[in-house]
Protein backbone atom coordinates (compact mmCIF):
# COMPACT_ATOMS: atom_id res chain seq x y z
CA UNK A 1 0.00 0.00 0.00
CA UNK A 2 1.29 3.46 -0.85
CA UNK A 3 1.38 6.30 1.66
CA UNK A 4 -1.83 7.92 0.30
CA UNK A 5 -3.80 4.70 0.68
CA UNK A 6 -2.51 4.20 4.25
CA UNK A 7 -3.49 7.77 5.20
CA UNK A 8 -6.92 7.35 3.58
CA UNK A 9 -7.44 4.16 5.56
CA UNK A 10 -6.44 5.87 8.81
CA UNK A 11 -8.87 8.73 8.19
CA UNK A 12 -11.71 6.30 7.45
CA UNK A 13 -10.92 4.40 10.68
CA UNK A 14 -10.90 7.72 12.58
CA UNK A 15 -14.29 8.78 11.14
CA UNK A 16 -15.92 5.42 11.90
CA UNK A 17 -14.42 5.32 15.40
CA UNK A 18 -15.61 8.85 16.22
CA UNK A 19 -19.11 7.92 15.01
CA UNK A 20 -19.30 4.87 17.28
CA UNK A 21 -17.80 6.66 20.27
CA UNK A 22 -20.45 9.42 20.00
CA UNK A 23 -23.37 7.01 19.45
CA UNK A 24 -22.39 4.50 22.14
CA UNK A 25 -21.43 7.32 24.51
CA UNK A 26 -24.94 8.73 24.16
CA UNK A 27 -26.48 5.29 24.72
CA UNK A 28 -24.36 4.87 27.88
CA UNK A 29 -25.48 8.30 29.13
CA UNK A 30 -29.12 7.28 28.52
CA UNK A 31 -28.61 4.05 30.47
CA UNK A 32 -27.00 6.03 33.31
CA UNK A 33 -29.95 8.45 33.38
CA UNK A 34 -32.49 5.59 33.37
CA UNK A 35 -30.68 3.97 36.31
CA UNK A 36 -30.71 7.23 38.28
CA UNK A 37 -34.44 7.57 37.58
CA UNK A 38 -35.10 4.04 38.82
CA UNK A 39 -33.36 4.93 42.08
CA UNK A 40 -35.28 8.23 42.36
CA UNK A 41 -38.68 6.60 41.83
CA UNK A 42 -37.75 3.83 44.30
CA UNK A 43 -36.90 6.48 46.91
CA UNK A 44 -40.19 8.26 46.20
CA UNK A 45 -42.20 5.09 46.80
CA UNK A 46 -40.21 4.09 49.90
CA UNK A 47 -39.39 7.31 51.78
CA UNK A 48 -37.09 6.88 54.79
Amino acid sequence: MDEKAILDHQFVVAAYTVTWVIQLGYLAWLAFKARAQKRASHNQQNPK
Partner: protein
Amino acid sequence: MKKAAFGLYIVLTIALMIWGFYMAIYGAPLDAAQGEIFRIIFYHVPSFAAAFTFFSVSFLGSIAFLSFRRSHPDWAQRADAWALAGAEVGVVFCTVGLTTGPIWGRRAWGIWWTWDARLTTTLVLWLIYVSYLLLRRFAAGPQMQTLAAVLGIFGALDVPIVYMANRWWRTQHPAPVFGGAEGSGMDPSMLPAFFWNMGAWFAWGILILALRYIVERKQQRIDAAEAQDALNATN
Protein backbone atom coordinates in the same frame (compact mmCIF):
# COMPACT_ATOMS: atom_id res chain seq x y z
CA MET B 1 -45.50 -9.24 23.77
CA LYS B 2 -44.48 -5.57 23.67
CA LYS B 3 -41.16 -6.43 25.34
CA ALA B 4 -40.53 -9.27 22.87
CA ALA B 5 -41.20 -6.97 19.89
CA PHE B 6 -38.84 -4.36 21.32
CA GLY B 7 -36.17 -7.04 21.89
CA LEU B 8 -36.60 -8.27 18.33
CA TYR B 9 -36.24 -4.71 17.03
CA ILE B 10 -32.98 -4.29 18.98
CA VAL B 11 -31.61 -7.57 17.55
CA LEU B 12 -32.61 -6.57 14.00
CA THR B 13 -31.03 -3.12 14.43
CA ILE B 14 -27.73 -4.62 15.64
CA ALA B 15 -27.76 -7.09 12.72
CA LEU B 16 -28.44 -4.22 10.32
CA MET B 17 -25.59 -2.17 11.80
CA ILE B 18 -23.15 -5.08 11.41
CA TRP B 19 -24.31 -5.71 7.83
CA GLY B 20 -24.12 -1.99 7.03
CA PHE B 21 -20.56 -1.85 8.34
CA TYR B 22 -19.59 -4.92 6.30
CA MET B 23 -21.12 -3.40 3.15
CA ALA B 24 -19.40 -0.05 3.74
CA ILE B 25 -15.95 -1.58 4.19
CA TYR B 26 -16.06 -4.67 1.93
CA GLY B 27 -19.23 -4.38 -0.19
CA ALA B 28 -18.64 -1.03 -1.88
CA PRO B 29 -15.80 -0.68 -4.41
CA LEU B 30 -13.11 1.99 -4.11
CA ASP B 31 -14.11 5.37 -5.51
CA ALA B 32 -12.25 6.13 -8.76
CA ALA B 33 -11.44 9.73 -7.75
CA GLN B 34 -11.18 9.64 -3.96
CA GLY B 35 -10.15 6.07 -3.17
CA GLU B 36 -10.93 4.65 0.25
CA ILE B 37 -11.66 8.01 1.92
CA PHE B 38 -14.99 8.05 0.05
CA ARG B 39 -16.24 5.32 2.41
CA ILE B 40 -16.90 8.05 4.99
CA ILE B 41 -20.01 8.89 2.94
CA PHE B 42 -21.71 5.75 4.30
CA TYR B 43 -21.68 7.24 7.82
CA HIS B 44 -21.63 10.96 7.03
CA VAL B 45 -24.70 11.31 4.79
CA PRO B 46 -27.03 8.97 6.76
CA SER B 47 -26.06 10.85 9.95
CA PHE B 48 -27.24 14.14 8.50
CA ALA B 49 -30.36 12.56 6.96
CA ALA B 50 -31.20 11.15 10.41
CA ALA B 51 -30.40 14.48 12.12
CA PHE B 52 -32.76 16.37 9.80
CA THR B 53 -35.50 13.79 10.37
CA PHE B 54 -35.18 13.93 14.16
CA PHE B 55 -35.09 17.73 14.16
CA SER B 56 -38.37 17.49 12.23
CA VAL B 57 -39.76 15.23 14.99
CA SER B 58 -38.75 17.94 17.46
CA PHE B 59 -40.43 20.57 15.28
CA LEU B 60 -43.72 18.62 15.14
CA GLY B 61 -43.53 17.86 18.88
CA SER B 62 -43.01 21.55 19.63
CA ILE B 63 -46.00 22.58 17.49
CA ALA B 64 -48.14 19.89 19.14
CA PHE B 65 -47.03 21.04 22.60
CA LEU B 66 -48.01 24.65 21.89
CA SER B 67 -51.32 23.52 20.39
CA PHE B 68 -52.38 21.22 23.24
CA ARG B 69 -50.80 22.79 26.32
CA ARG B 70 -54.11 24.32 27.46
CA SER B 71 -56.73 21.97 26.03
CA HIS B 72 -55.04 18.55 26.55
CA PRO B 73 -52.19 18.83 29.09
CA ASP B 74 -51.36 15.11 28.93
CA TRP B 75 -51.04 15.16 25.13
CA ALA B 76 -48.91 18.29 25.47
CA GLN B 77 -46.55 16.48 27.88
CA ARG B 78 -46.20 13.59 25.44
CA ALA B 79 -45.53 16.04 22.59
CA ASP B 80 -42.95 17.82 24.71
CA ALA B 81 -41.20 14.50 25.40
CA TRP B 82 -41.06 13.80 21.63
CA ALA B 83 -39.74 17.33 21.02
CA LEU B 84 -36.95 16.86 23.54
CA ALA B 85 -36.09 13.34 22.32
CA GLY B 86 -36.02 14.53 18.68
CA ALA B 87 -33.79 17.49 19.48
CA GLU B 88 -31.36 15.48 21.56
CA VAL B 89 -31.01 12.55 19.15
CA GLY B 90 -30.81 15.06 16.29
CA VAL B 91 -27.89 16.78 18.03
CA VAL B 92 -26.14 13.41 18.43
CA PHE B 93 -26.44 12.68 14.70
CA CYS B 94 -25.55 16.25 13.74
CA THR B 95 -22.42 16.00 15.94
CA VAL B 96 -21.44 12.82 14.09
CA GLY B 97 -21.91 14.59 10.75
CA LEU B 98 -19.97 17.64 11.90
CA THR B 99 -17.01 15.52 13.01
CA THR B 100 -16.89 13.01 10.14
CA GLY B 101 -17.20 15.90 7.64
CA PRO B 102 -13.97 17.67 8.63
CA ILE B 103 -12.12 14.32 8.76
CA TRP B 104 -13.22 13.69 5.18
CA GLY B 105 -12.57 17.32 4.18
CA ARG B 106 -8.98 17.22 5.50
CA ARG B 107 -8.12 14.42 3.05
CA ALA B 108 -10.32 15.51 0.16
CA TRP B 109 -9.79 19.31 0.26
CA GLY B 110 -6.66 19.62 2.42
CA ILE B 111 -8.52 21.64 5.09
CA TRP B 112 -10.51 20.70 8.17
CA TRP B 113 -13.09 23.47 7.85
CA THR B 114 -14.16 26.38 5.68
CA TRP B 115 -16.86 28.97 6.28
CA ASP B 116 -18.93 28.15 3.22
CA ALA B 117 -22.72 28.32 3.27
CA ARG B 118 -23.35 24.58 3.77
CA LEU B 119 -20.91 24.14 6.65
CA THR B 120 -21.79 27.42 8.36
CA THR B 121 -25.57 26.88 8.26
CA THR B 122 -25.03 23.34 9.60
CA LEU B 123 -22.94 24.66 12.49
CA VAL B 124 -25.65 27.26 13.22
CA LEU B 125 -28.27 24.47 13.23
CA TRP B 126 -26.17 22.48 15.71
CA LEU B 127 -25.69 25.55 17.93
CA ILE B 128 -29.44 26.31 17.94
CA TYR B 129 -30.29 22.80 19.12
CA VAL B 130 -27.46 22.73 21.66
CA SER B 131 -28.89 25.99 23.06
CA TYR B 132 -32.33 24.30 23.08
CA LEU B 133 -30.90 21.48 25.21
CA LEU B 134 -29.08 23.94 27.50
CA LEU B 135 -32.32 25.89 27.95
CA ARG B 136 -34.11 22.71 28.96
CA ARG B 137 -31.31 21.73 31.31
CA PHE B 138 -30.81 25.03 33.13
CA ALA B 139 -34.06 27.02 32.85
CA ALA B 140 -36.76 26.38 35.42
CA GLY B 141 -40.37 27.35 35.91
CA PRO B 142 -43.62 26.81 34.04
CA GLN B 143 -42.55 28.78 30.95
CA MET B 144 -39.51 26.62 30.22
CA GLN B 145 -41.36 24.11 27.99
CA THR B 146 -43.08 26.91 26.06
CA LEU B 147 -39.81 28.77 25.45
CA ALA B 148 -38.13 25.52 24.38
CA ALA B 149 -40.99 24.77 21.97
CA VAL B 150 -40.65 28.20 20.34
CA LEU B 151 -36.89 27.74 20.01
CA GLY B 152 -37.44 24.23 18.60
CA ILE B 153 -39.74 25.60 15.91
CA PHE B 154 -37.34 28.40 14.91
CA GLY B 155 -34.40 26.00 14.97
CA ALA B 156 -36.11 23.66 12.53
CA LEU B 157 -36.46 26.49 10.02
CA ASP B 158 -32.69 26.19 9.47
CA VAL B 159 -33.05 22.58 8.26
CA PRO B 160 -34.32 23.43 4.73
CA ILE B 161 -31.71 26.22 4.50
CA VAL B 162 -28.93 23.70 5.29
CA TYR B 163 -30.39 21.26 2.78
CA MET B 164 -30.61 23.86 0.01
CA ALA B 165 -27.33 25.68 0.84
CA ASN B 166 -25.22 23.88 -1.78
CA ARG B 167 -27.98 24.37 -4.37
CA TRP B 168 -28.51 28.09 -3.72
CA TRP B 169 -24.89 29.16 -3.23
CA ARG B 170 -21.50 28.15 -4.58
CA THR B 171 -19.83 26.14 -1.83
CA GLN B 172 -16.63 24.25 -1.10
CA HIS B 173 -18.90 21.38 -0.07
CA PRO B 174 -19.64 19.21 -3.13
CA ALA B 175 -22.91 19.57 -5.06
CA PRO B 176 -25.68 17.19 -3.99
CA VAL B 177 -25.06 13.53 -4.87
CA PHE B 178 -28.79 12.75 -4.94
CA GLY B 179 -31.31 15.09 -6.50
CA GLY B 180 -28.61 17.42 -7.77
CA ALA B 181 -27.88 18.72 -11.24
CA GLU B 182 -27.71 16.56 -14.35
CA GLY B 183 -24.96 13.95 -14.06
CA SER B 184 -25.12 13.80 -10.27
CA GLY B 185 -25.67 10.49 -8.51
CA MET B 186 -23.76 7.54 -7.17
CA ASP B 187 -22.30 4.64 -9.09
CA PRO B 188 -24.85 1.77 -8.97
CA SER B 189 -22.22 -0.55 -7.46
CA MET B 190 -22.10 1.70 -4.37
CA LEU B 191 -25.85 2.07 -3.90
CA PRO B 192 -26.46 -1.14 -1.89
CA ALA B 193 -23.85 -0.10 0.71
CA PHE B 194 -25.33 3.38 0.84
CA PHE B 195 -28.93 2.27 1.32
CA TRP B 196 -28.07 -0.50 3.83
CA ASN B 197 -26.26 2.07 5.94
CA MET B 198 -29.09 4.56 5.54
CA GLY B 199 -31.50 1.87 6.83
CA ALA B 200 -29.15 0.83 9.63
CA TRP B 201 -28.61 4.37 10.93
CA PHE B 202 -32.31 5.17 10.79
CA ALA B 203 -33.12 1.95 12.68
CA TRP B 204 -30.50 2.88 15.29
CA GLY B 205 -31.82 6.46 15.47
CA ILE B 206 -35.42 5.32 15.98
CA LEU B 207 -34.23 2.99 18.74
CA ILE B 208 -32.42 5.69 20.71
CA LEU B 209 -35.26 8.14 20.01
CA ALA B 210 -37.75 5.70 21.55
CA LEU B 211 -35.46 5.07 24.54
CA ARG B 212 -35.01 8.82 25.09
CA TYR B 213 -38.80 9.32 24.90
CA ILE B 214 -39.39 6.58 27.51
CA VAL B 215 -36.77 8.12 29.84
CA GLU B 216 -38.31 11.60 29.46
CA ARG B 217 -41.85 10.37 30.14
CA LYS B 218 -40.62 8.69 33.30
CA GLN B 219 -38.86 11.93 34.31
CA GLN B 220 -42.11 13.83 33.82
CA ARG B 221 -43.91 11.38 36.14
CA ILE B 222 -41.15 11.68 38.79
CA ASP B 223 -41.29 15.50 38.58
CA ALA B 224 -45.10 15.48 38.85
CA ALA B 225 -44.96 13.19 41.90
CA GLU B 226 -42.32 15.41 43.53
CA ALA B 227 -44.46 18.50 42.90
CA GLN B 228 -47.49 16.73 44.40
CA ASP B 229 -45.45 15.69 47.46
CA ALA B 230 -44.27 19.29 47.94
CA LEU B 231 -47.86 20.51 47.65
CA ASN B 232 -49.07 17.94 50.20
CA ALA B 233 -46.27 18.94 52.59
CA THR B 234 -47.25 22.62 52.50
CA ASN B 235 -50.98 21.90 53.07
